[in-house]
């Protein structure tokens, strides 16, 4: 059988990215939308690590930075979600309209 090429990893990462975008655009629950964003970040990480096999270790360093950013984003996003839920008693994105007038 053929060896695993970078293309294999790019296909998996593209699938994860597309599924994450679909989740962000179609789901109503804010928690699921945040999880879809994590899926997108994971796809980027897989690309970075796959290319780091060709171009050197810098890609893995950047994937660690992306993981750190994902942690910060999840903490802030879920904090906003808790603060919002306290006001409106809902987690649906289409009912988040406090800034609309």
């Amino acid at each position, binding site marked *: 059988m053929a060896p695993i090429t970078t293309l294999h990893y790019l296909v998996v990462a*593209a*699938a994860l990215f*597309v599924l994450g975008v679909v989740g962000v655009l179609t789901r*109503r629950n804010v*928690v699921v939308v945040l999880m879809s964003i994590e899926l997108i970040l994971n796809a980027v990480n897989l690309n970075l690590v796959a290319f*780091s096999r060709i171009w050197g270790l810098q890609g*893995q360093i950047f994937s660690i930075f992306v993981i750190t950013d*994902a942690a*910060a984003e999840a*903490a802030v996003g879920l904090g906003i979600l808790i603060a919002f839920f306290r006001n409106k008693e809902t987690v649906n994105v289409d009912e988040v309209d406090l800034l609309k007038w």
Partner: protein
Amino acid sequence: MLHLSIFLFFGAICAAGAVNLLVQRHPINSALSLIAVMVSLAVEYLLLGAEFVAAVQVIIYAGAIMVLFVFVIMLLNAGVEERIEGSRVAMILGIPGMLVGSALVAWVLLERSGTSSVAVGSLPGYPKEIAGLLFHDFLLPFEVTSVLVLIAIMGAVVLASHPDSETQQKKES
């Protein structure tokens, strides 16, 4: 041979878990399938020779971040998501857009398919090399990231703290 079958198996688990995340109606099921996606991604990192990133993926992503998600789902006690009718414009514009996007991705991937393949483990991502890069070449971004995490922690504490708690404490004292 063995590597390719392991890759295909865990790649399939990745895609299936991501699809399951979208299909499930209850957020706790979505969170559990996202954990499955992350663990199988860690195996893919191991196949790439990135041992440190695989360990970080399991510990931070599948451990810390997903525990945060599950905790918030439990705290909000959000039930099954109810479906609504999608808009007609989204169907008209979205399906051709999705087809064009997939065709574009497939074209780029096939056009660039000549990217070389390196044997598994020929570029090991040992913690020693990672640390050398992280604390020498990328020292400034590393420190900036620490400031970012500090700001994120403070923001999360400020956002999640109860607005009435300060006034109540003043009344009690």
